[in-house]
């Protein structure tokens, strides 16, 4: 575990050297900041707008950072051949994958924290300090982002960057639309396709589960129980993704 932590810190520092992190962060802050200029709206609507835009921004840009960081975490190491020295040291391949997961999760944490601080500052500025529901929303986004990153990390152990990038974004979109899946499945007539669709429906992570902002923004509270269950749902998916990643990385020749 100590070795995984050493690798995690190294991954964290290395990711902080990347320009993408700062560019995405600045753009996200600009978008959050801009949300307050919809001042033609009534005060109450403006606040909803700020929250809505900010939560979406934190989620979307967080997802971009999660995917790009995870991509660089494995293939960057292989491309630059730093992996040779690393794997010749007394670490297991699971140390490596778990270290990478922790490292990229720290980057996501930092990113979400910075965006949230800015957003919360804005709320204070608008004389509407955040309540616990706001933090629940951000927390679930954070879990979702770790999940997104862990899937990209896992795919990186056996697929090319190009495939991984397309796959990750595709999954990001599908994962958000999957709630509509049952309606679509009913319309499919081919039995085989329907079975297949049904299977995918149960396998693909439902990212919308982590999205409670629509309720929070209009003032509907979300229970701790829901937060707990959804977190557990996320952790199970993260664990599966990491196990798949470890499995393939043990077979990977670098």
């Amino acid at each position, binding site marked *: 575990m100590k070795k995984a932590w050493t690798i995690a810190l190294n991954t964290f520092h290395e990711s902080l050297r990347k320009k993408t992190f700062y560019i995405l962060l600045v753009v996200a802050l600009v978008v959050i900041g801009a949300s307050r200029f919809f001042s033609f709206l009534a005060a109450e609507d403006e606040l909803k707008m700020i929250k809505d835009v900010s939560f979406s921004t934190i989620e979307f840009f967080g997802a971009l950072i999660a995917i790009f960081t995870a991509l660089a975490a494995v293939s960057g190491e292989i491309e630059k051949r730093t992996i040779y020295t690393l794997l*010749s040291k007394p670490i297991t391949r699971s140390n490596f994958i778990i270290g990478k997961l922790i490292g990229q999760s720290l980057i996501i944490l930092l990113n979400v924290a910075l965006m949230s601080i800015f957003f919360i500052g804005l709320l204070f500025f608008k004389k509407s300090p955040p309540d616990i529901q706001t933090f629940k929303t951000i927390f679930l986004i954070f879990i979702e982002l770790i999940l997104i990153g862990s899937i990209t990390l896992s795919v990186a152990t056996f697929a090319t960057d190009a495939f991984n990038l397309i796959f990750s974004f595709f999954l990001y979109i599908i994962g958000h639309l999957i709630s509509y899946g049952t309606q679509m499945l009913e319309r499919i007539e081919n039995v085989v396709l329907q079975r297949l669709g049904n299977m995918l429906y149960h396998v693909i992570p439902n990212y919308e589960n982590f999205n409670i902002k629509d309720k929070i923004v209009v003032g509907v509270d979300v229970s701790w129980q829901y937060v707990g269950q959804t977190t557990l749902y996320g952790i199970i998916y993260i664990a599966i993704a990491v196990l798949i990643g470890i499995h393939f990385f043990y077979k990977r020749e670098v």
Partner: protein
Amino acid sequence: MALIETRELSKVYTLSSKKSVTALNNVTMSIEEGEIFGILGPNGSGKTTCLKLLLGIIFPTEGEISIMGQNQYSVVTKKNIGFLPENPYYYDYLTGPEILKFYGKLFDMPPGIIRERTDSLLELVNLNNAKNLSLKHYSKGMLERIGLAVSLINDPKILILDEPTTGLDPIGCKETRDLLKKLHDSGKTILLSSHFLSEVERVCSRIVIFHKGNLLTTGTLESLLEEYKAENLEDLFVKAIRKFDSETGQTEEDAINLQSSV
């Protein structure tokens, strides 16, 4: 008992469903404790492949490896190994001391010991005056030298070096050679690969010659020179390769091409 042993080790790289490269073919060899063992061979003969197999970075298609009585994936065994890859490359935003600290931590070494070893190793590889320089500003020779320091951070029993003198100038080569002798004297077993003949000639107690993934011959330099009636290592090299090629039906032309590439 031998410190490192390979038994009928083969590695076939699959490029596509139809194309494959046999990079190593049925290699059986053993390296005894306290040797400086040299793997010689022209470009593409399988030297790097062999070393990567020994470190568990890639996996054999056929055959077995044992290092200190364990297989090559044993984390415990790796505590006793230092490795310098071919054209080493490290996290280039770190400085020399930071790199050594990072790898030292992977060996669970206490911070105090890491600091001590860092100082003495930077001294040893002559990088003491570049302590604050990040690796991206290093020259090729400096990278090779920090690589040597990295491979020594854990004070390993076994040192595996893939072409440790590429990129070094004649003085750097000599310094490395002297360093290898010193390490050998302190009881380390060294396995190195090289296609740079004169260097190997001077430090190795025993050599193998690889060619197209095959182990052509092995022994001490004197015994091989005698066996092949060769004047020097270079001559031996060419003769061994010619003999192999004629036995396996290669043309004289191939051999000459090889000779010019040596």
